[in-house]
Each structure stands twice: as structure tokens, then as C-alpha cells.
């Protein structure tokens, strides 16, 4: 089975189809890895992210659609948010598998459509279709209208809402009712290309190397995932279960990182209350036994009748403690809104929290906000800001358009309370300064402030050193506050998550979120063998992760030149935590710099954070861009 890349030029409505050479796949797998290779190769250096010259790349995972929990796709481009560095995002759902069944592994989209357009990709055909009738509609409406337009209810749709159309810097690409490729403004790039949606449907099927072996692998991985201790919890509550633990261990952002524990949430915000009062059903991504997504409905109160899908821990914490709110109803109402508009939860709640702190400190008043009262937890103001951001209206509209540059417009002392990295809003719920590996890995992640690459979840469970040593291959301290071995733990985690995102595996089905019995490198190798017939070792896969990571770094170096200074966590991480537990915990700046040196040393980078020529040679990156594809 040869995987194919479609190069789609929206300006001239042209399509070119290429076979992806095995040599390139072995070096970069698929998903995030091959997307990065395509970005590095096809993007002309130095272009404006919103210009037609920017490329928007969709990639299914290498083995997407073939194994349990492997149905994720990656969207990669030059970032619309922040400094215009490495933009990438990952989403689950059904789109990735369907794209593969439709005959494509990757889509590279360039140019700009002359009118609103959507793509209809089915069984090897790519059609450009008029999307004028969709423009201005939100994602829920768009699904309904697109399925009606193409007359195939089995199609899967990735699309933007009004936020992407209006070029909000933190607009998402959405899929289904809640699946989102968020952060770095991939929806903004899609909007700038006048591309409303990509609908896919495939019935061709995938011929794999060894179907019997794959069935066996598939069954054994399913058994493995459903036998872990975390499975009954995650299949019932999803990521919401993290909330109580994060809050009660004093590791959550409260009121824009001013506090680290939110007492008001006790007995009001937790996963069981959601389960009892709002949830109506569990739903899954394609091929996944975890079913961690929920459908919900609000039955009473001011938001009665609101329905939707989600929410995740990030929504709960971002529109909960981060903005001083302990009301589930508001969180769910906001969740429905941001999913329909296609806004990123981390950034939209992060900016809301920042503005509320500015209001608290008197830096902004009703004159700035256009009459909005931004007291902590003011529900109507929170929802109004969401509407404004997405529609580019009023004060919220300015935030949506300017993102972190808004601090320059507001002026005064406002920038002091804006916590960003690489120009990206620090993910609002994250307040993990006491846990060293997680802090280091998130801070050094290539898109900036990234818990999905950064969260070293096994750090939090005080695991015996021998268990940690077995997983990481080197000694790692059990105490999350210790730095010993953490630079390596951060490096290992970054490689692991990158491999998972390149293969298409959901990280929740892997050992990443906290169960050591979930899928790991050896299981990845089994699937690759059954699907592709390649004999790959865990060490090779780990090196592949490192190669992709370094190529991403080279991209950042080429496009922004910001290296070491972009690897420092937000300033607030160097302040002591005010509340118990973990009161007084902070990062020490000298210690952090020392550990950053250690991390660079492990990576084979200079003190400035540049990969050395020897490192590039070792990873076979010294000839990139190699133009093999």
C-alpha cells in the first residue's frame, strides 16, 4: 500500500498527487512528523503566516484507521498566533481514518481561494465546491449544511467557524461537535485561505501487510487499554477527572495564576457532578474503546436547553478557576459557544483571565471594555467576550485580532500580567511550576507553552524509582519537586508524544497520561510491523521522535530566530505559590538556567539552544530540506 500526498492549490484550483516514498516515511512517519518535513520543505522562508504563500498541511497518522485509538490527525502551518513560529495541532475524531480510506495520507494546501470554498474528498477524487452558502455559519450548522449539500451522511468534516473566517488569531479547526485542532491559530490560516471546510469520505479500504497479525495486534491492544486501572475512570469521566486532583494538590491557575487552589470549586466543580447532572452519553473517536467524550445538556437555570459535546479538563479549569468561576452551567454554555465559533479554549479563557486581572487592578475600566464589567466570574461578561472575540466586535474583537499584542494597545502595566511564551498565551489552567519535568518540557515545547508535549504525568504519582528507571531507561527522581533526572524525563516525553502524534495514536491510550500499563513503544512497533511490514525497534522510533523534534527546532530557528529566550516559562512561574498545598513553591531562575543547559546538553544543542552540526548529522538532518517528496 502506497500512501499519497495531495498538493492542493486553492488559487488555481489545481491538484497534484504524489506517492510518499518509503524512505521519507521511515524518517518522519506521518502525522506531525511528515507534516513538519513538508512544512520545512514547501514553505518559502519568511512569508507572512496569513499570506497565500503559507501552507496548511493536514496529515493522518501513519497507522491511523488501522489500530485502536490511532485515529488522530495533525494540522501544521506557520503559526498565526504568537511570533509566527511552528504552528501545529492535533485532533481526534473520525476525519483521519476517513481521509486514509479516501486514499490520502497528507494534504498540503496553498494559495487562496477566490471565493469561499470547501473541499469534498471522496475515494481519490478532490472537488472544489462553493462555500458561499456556508460562510458566516458556525460549525454545528456547517456540518448539517455540508452533509446535506454532498448527500452523504457518512462524510466526516473538518471546518472553521466564524472565528476562523474573521481571522481570530487563536481560531481552531474543528471536527464534529467538539474535536478541535487548537492553539497556534490553524483556523485563522484556514480562514485566510477562504477555505471553510474539508469533507472526506472513503470506501476504498487499506491493504495492510499482514491482516491476520493486525487483527491479533488490534485485539491485544484493545485488551491492554481496557485492562488498565485508569480505564474505568477515563471511559466514564474523561479528562474531567484531572480537575479535582489538580485543584486539591494546589496546581491549578486561579484568577490568572494569582492563586493555586480554588476553594469555591469544592463540592461544585467536579467530574461526578457533571456525570450526574449534565451528561447524557459517552462518545468515542474512531476505533477507540476509551470513549472519553461526553454529550451534555443543561436542564435548568438561565442556560437551560444548551447542549453540546465535550468538555475537557482544560475547559473546566480555563472557564472555571482561571476566570474565578465555580458554576458548571457557565462552563458548559461557554464550551458550546467556543466549539460552535471555533475558538481555542486555552487562549480564549487565558485572555479572559488576563483582562479580569487588569480590571481587578484598575488597569482597565469600563471606558476600555466598552461597558463590560469584568469582575471575576461575571458570567454575562465572559460569554459576551467570547461572542466579541469570534465576531471581531468591540473590546473582545480587538483581543481576538491582536492576541498577545493587545498588551501594547492597552499599554500601562498590562503586559506584566500577560503570561506568554513565544508570543503564545500560556495555557490558562496550567500552574505546574512545582513539578519540574512538566515545567521544563512544556516551556521548551516547539509551539510554546504546550502541555500536550510537556505534561510528564508519571512525575505526579511518586512512583518507585525502579519503576521510573525501567520506563525512562535512566534514573528519575520520584518527587515531582526534585530536578534529578528531570531534564531527561522531559526529553523522553517530548520524543514519545511526537512519535504518538506522528503515528496517529491518542496519547490517552499510551503511558503518557499516567498508566504505565498502556501502549508504549513496543506496541507501536507491533502495529507498524503488521501494517507496513517494517521491522522497527523502540530505539529507532525514539530517534525518529528526536529527529522530528530537531527539525521543528530548525524551523523555529529559520522563521523566528528565537531559541533560548523562548524556552523560559512565564514570569509568574518564578514567583512563590501563595496557597497550600505547595505554598512557597517556585522555580529558581538560576536553577532553571542550569537545568536548561543540562537539557540542551542531552539534546546535543549549544548553550544558545541551537542543534549542533554533529547532532544534525547524527539524526540525518544535515541535508534538509532534502526534497525527496
Amino acid at each position, binding site marked *: 500500500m502506497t500512501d499519497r500526498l495531495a498538493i492542493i492549490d486553492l488559487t488555481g484550483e489545481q491538484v497534484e498527487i504524489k506517492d510518499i516514498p518509503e524512505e521519507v516515511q521511515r524518517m518522519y512517519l506521518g502525522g506531525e512528523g511528515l507534516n513538519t518535513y513538508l512544512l520545512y520543505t514547501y514553505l518559502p522562508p519568511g512569508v507572512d503566516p496569513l499570506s497565500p504563500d503559507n501552507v496548511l498541511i493536514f496529515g493522518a497518522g501513519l497507522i491511523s*484507521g*488501522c489500530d*485502536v485509538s490511532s485515529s488522530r490527525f495533525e494540522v501544521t502551518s506557520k503559526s498565526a498566533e504568537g511570533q509566527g513560529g511552528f504552528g501545529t495541532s492535533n485532533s481526534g475524531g*473520525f476525519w483521519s*481514518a476517513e481521509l486514509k*480510506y479516501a486514499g490520502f495520507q497528507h494534504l498540503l494546501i496553498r494559495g487562496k481561494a477566490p471565493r469561499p470554498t470547501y473541499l469534498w474528498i471522496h*475515494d481519490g477524487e478532490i472537488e472544489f465546491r462553493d462555500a458561499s452558502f456556508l460562510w458566516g455559519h458556525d460549525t*454545528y450548522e456547517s*456540518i*448539517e449544511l455540508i452533509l446535506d449539500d454532498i448527500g452523504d*451522511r*457518512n462524510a466526516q468534516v473538518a471546518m472553521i467557524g466564524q472565528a476562523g473566517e474573521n481571522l481570530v488569531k487563536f481560531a481552531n479547526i474543528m471536527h*464534529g*461537535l467538539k474535536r478541535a485542532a487548537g492553539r497556534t491559530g490553524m483556523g485563522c490560516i484556514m480562514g485566510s485561505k477562504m477555505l471553510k471546510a474539508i469533507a472526506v469520505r*472513503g*470506501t*476504498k*479500504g*487499506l*491493504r*495492510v501487510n499482514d*491482516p*491476520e497479525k*493486525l*487483527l491479533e495486534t*488490534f*485485539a491485544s491492544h*484493545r485488551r491492554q487499554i*481496557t485492562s488498565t486501572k485508569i480505564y474505568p475512570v477515563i*471511559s*466514564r469521566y474523561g479528562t474531567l477527572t484531572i480537575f479535582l486532583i489538580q485543584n486539591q494538590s494546589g496546581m491549578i491557575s486561579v484568577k490568572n495564576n494569582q492563586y493555586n487552589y480554588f476553594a469555591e470549586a469544592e463540592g461544585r466543580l467536579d467530574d461526578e457532578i457533571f456525570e450526574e447532572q449534565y451528561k*447524557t*452519553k*459517552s*462518545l*468515542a*473517536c*474512531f*476505533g*477507540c*474503546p476509551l*470513549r472519553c467524550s461526553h*454529550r451534555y445538556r443543561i436542564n435548568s437555570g438561565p442556560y437551560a436547553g444548551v447542549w453540546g*459535546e465535550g468538555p475537557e479538563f482544560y475547559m473546566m479549569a480555563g472557564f472555571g478557576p482561571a476566570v474565578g468561576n465555580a458554576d458548571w452551567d457557565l462552563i458548559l454554555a461557554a464550551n458550546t459557544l467556543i466549539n460552535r465559533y471555533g475558538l481555542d479554549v486555552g487562549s480564549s479563557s487565558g485572555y479572559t483571565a488576563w483582562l479580569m486581572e487588569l480590571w481587578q487592578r484598575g488597569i482597565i475600566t469600563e471606558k476600555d471594555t466598552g461597558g463590560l464589567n469584568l469582575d471575576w466570574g461575571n458570567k454575562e461578561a465572559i460569554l459576551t467576550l467570547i461572542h466579541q472575540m469570534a465576531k471581531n466586535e468591540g473590546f473582545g474583537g480587538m483581543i481576538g485580532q491582536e492576541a498577545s499584542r493587545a498588551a501594547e494597545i492597552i499599554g500601562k502595566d498590562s503586559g506584566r500580567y500577560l503570561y506568554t511564551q513565544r508570543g503564545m498565551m500560556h495555557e490558562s489552567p496550567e500552574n505546574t511550576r512545582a513539578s519540574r519535568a512538566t515545567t521544563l518540557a512544556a516551556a521548551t515545547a516547539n509551539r510554546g507553552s504546550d502541555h500536550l508535549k510537556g505534561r510528564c504525568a508519571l512525575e505526579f504519582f511518586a512512583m518507585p524509582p525502579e519503576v521510573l528507571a525501567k520506563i525512562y531507561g535512566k534514573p528519575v527522581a520520584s518527587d515531582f519537586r526534585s530536578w534529578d533526572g528531570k531534564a531527561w524525563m522531559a526529553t523522553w516525553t517530548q520524543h514519545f508524544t511526537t512519535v504518538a502524534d506522528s503515528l496517529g495514536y491518542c496519547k490517552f491510550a499510551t503511558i503518557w497520561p499516567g498508566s504505565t500499563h498502556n501502549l508504549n513503544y513496543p506496541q507501536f512497533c507491533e502495529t507498524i510491523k503488521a501494517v507496513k511490514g517494517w521491522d522497527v525497534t523502540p530505539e529507532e522510533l525514539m530517534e525518529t521522535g528526536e529527529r522530528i523534534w530537531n527539525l521543528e527546532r530548525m524551523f523555529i530557528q529559520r522563521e523566528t530566530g528565537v531559541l533560548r529566550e523562548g524556552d523560559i516559562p512565564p514570569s509568574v512561574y518564578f514567583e512563590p505559590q501563595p496557597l497550600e498545598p505547595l505554598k512557597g513553591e517556585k522555580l529558581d531562575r538560576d536553577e532553571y538556567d542550569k537545568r536548561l543547559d543540562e537539557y540542551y546538553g542531552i539534546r546535543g544543542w549549544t548553550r544558545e539552544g541551537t542543534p549542533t552540526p554533529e547532532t544534525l548529522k547524527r539524526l540525518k538532518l544535515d541535508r534538509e530540506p532534502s526534497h525527496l517528496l
Partner: protein
Amino acid sequence: MAQKTFFIRSEFCSGCGICQLACSLVKEKEVNPAMSRVVIERQVLDGLMVPHICVNCKKPACIDACKRKAITKDPETGWVTIDRDRCNNCALCVGACPYNAIVVAPDKQVLLCDVCGGSPKCAEMCPTGALQFADRSEGIVGKTDTAAIDIWK
């Protein structure tokens, strides 16, 4: 001999399609949900996931509809199967089936579940119990005296 057949509880179906992947690997030796004998009707906006599979009716309408006598019911096991040599893919059975359980494949071939000789991989791998292969004199709903117990798996 106790007969077994499929029982469906749509409420539990998460829409994951593991049953379809397993079916296409077993039956077609490829990964292709479109060739699966199980169909999941996914009403995305409603959050409804409804599996369809042959439930081996006691009086199968498909057998009455078939002009070529290609569909038969085994009196002992109760299983309804299609004889590919006799079938000309006219799809009269598809229209007759009250459960939308007979599938027209992308290549217009008519596909009907054959319960894999009594050990269907789809039901074995269903993570939620939405699709179960059980004794048809018992069903899966459970006894009255256990009716008030939490049924979420």
C-alpha cells in the same frame, strides 16, 4: 441446542467502530469499515449511534424477498446466511430487511453477517456491550430483580 444471536443496545454504543474494523479484517482481510457487515448509523448532531447487524430473525423477511433462494436459515443454529454463488446482488433482501441489517458494499455486492461460525469478533471486541452475541432464549436486558442496579459498564 440453545440458539445464539445478536442483541443491540444502542444507548451504550459510543460509535467507535471497533466492531467494523474487526469485521473487515476478518471477512475481507483489509481495513475497511465500508465493507463491514456491521453498520453504525451515526447521527452526529444528535449524538445517536445505532448499530445495525443481522439478528437472525425467526421468520426472516429477506428469505421471502429473495427470488433466487440465496438466503437460508439453519434450523438448528437459527443463523441466516447468504449463498454468494446464488446471489446476484439484486438487493431485494436489503429493502425487505426490517432492521437495515443487510449491507450494499461500495462495489454493489450484498453483504450479510454470517456470525463467523458462532464466535463473532465484533461482539467480542465491543468495549461497551452495545453489541452482544447471546442466548436468544435469555436476551441481554437482564432479570427484573436486578433492574434497579446501575447498568453502566
